């Protein structure tokens, strides 16, 4: 039962409050399931909206997104629609509905991690998560979930997306247009001339957290994107992805979808006509 609602005015104040309260405190970004179904042990909501974290700005090397920026803020930010083939914009349009994107914050999404189209996409564009645990820190998003970070004990302050010539694609496969993904895939690559110099293939909603697939990604590096390399990487993605069954789809189906969707992402980046 929620008995207190706090609104700290700085990141450090938010962190101190969170530390003091322990499991009884929970950060709130925007609208949230916490408001309706708070865990039994949570008694205090800590609203970050006054902590000065609602901004999106770009310098020469990064887009910086503050944690309480909404998904709509990001969707409407022009550079999200141009950098990395506009993949962040493309993805966000498929997330839930405007009603949710207007309230949901990027920080809340990152802290939760699962049930997300956002996290796999940010992994594919080589993003970095910024957080505060007494000090300001940053960690590549792929490590943010891999590490044994206690995400409920820190304050996620934002995310940063590199601005370079990276290219990317995203596919969401869902039962309906207004559902969580049965599976999603996001692929980012960097090329010098024709040659792929960096690649990251990520599969999300398996149905768990977004999972980068290094073995499949490595196959692409050091050569141009060809239908052959695309096919091989997709097959390895299928063989190496970790999937489970749930009511949205069986593990077997998810494994199959991973191959098809990774292939479609890569084909799109390669400039082929994909149709789907």
């Amino acid at each position, binding site marked *: *039962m*929620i*008995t*207190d*609602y706090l*609104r700290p005015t700085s990141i450090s104040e938010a962190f101190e409050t969170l530390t003091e309260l322990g499991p009884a405190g929970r950060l*709130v970004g*925007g*609208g*949230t*399931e*916490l*408001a*309706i179904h*708070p865990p039994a042990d949570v008694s*205090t*909501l800590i*609203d970050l*909206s006054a902590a000065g974290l609602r901004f999106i700005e770009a310098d020469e090397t990064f887009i910086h997104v503050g944690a309480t920026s*909404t998904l*709509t803020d990001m969707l409407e930010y022009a550079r999200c629609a141009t950098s990395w083939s506009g993949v962040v914009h493309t993805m966000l*349009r498929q997330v*839930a*509905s*405007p*009603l*949710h994107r*207007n*309230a949901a914050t990027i920080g809340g999404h990152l802290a939760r991690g699962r049930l997300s189209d956002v996290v796999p996409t940010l992994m594919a564009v080589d993003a970095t998560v910024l957080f505060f645990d007494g000090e300001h820190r940053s960690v590549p998003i792929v490590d943010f979930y891999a590490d044994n970070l206690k995400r409920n004990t820190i304050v996620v302050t934002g995310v940063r997306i590199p601005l370079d010539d990276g290219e990317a694609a995203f596919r969401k496969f869902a039962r309906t*247009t*207004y559902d969580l993904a049965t599976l999603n895939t996001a692929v980012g690559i960097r090329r010098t001339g024709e040659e792929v110099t960096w690649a990251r293939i990520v599969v999300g909603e398996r149905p768990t957290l977004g999972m980068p697939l290094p073995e499949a990604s490595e196959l692409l590096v050091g050569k141009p994107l060809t239908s052959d390399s695309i096919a091989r990487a997709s097959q390895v993605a299928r063989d190496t992805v970790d999937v489970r069954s749930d009511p949205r789809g069986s593990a077997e189906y998810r494994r199959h979808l991973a191959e098809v969707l990774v292939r479609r992402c890569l084909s799109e980046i390669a400039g082929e006509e994909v149709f789907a």
Partner: protein
Amino acid sequence: MRFTVNDQVFDIDVDPGASLLDLLRRLGFYGVKNGCDNGDCGACAVLVDARSVTSCDYPARAAEGKRIVTVEGLAPSGSLHPLQAAFLDTGAVQCGFCTPGMLISAVELLEHNPDPSESEVREALRGNLCRCTGYTKPVEAIQLAAARMREVDHD
């Protein structure tokens, strides 16, 4: 806590666990509907600082200092907002339970996009579940209202 609903200023104590939906209905804004209490159906949509959100999963206390608009605030008493009129003219209202939420989503859409395509209208309504209409006529209504509003703007 201080906030406004439909330009009316409130300065009252608000339960830290309350949702904005509960608060608004307690204040008599019954046009805000509870269809699922889970952020899924959109019947409870209101504008918070000109952005449509589901009020059932929006903490009431997060509305501190904000301007809230409910369906009751769309048009002065006795008149209709062009969207409301168009919903009636096209037969877009059946049971009417999802209508307030749809109108709120549509207000925000037309604020940003005065001439939306059919698919843009459908995208804007995605979070407003309707079981009666199949969406055909609500979509038509919003485009009709947009056309009428553009005409007025031109005059």
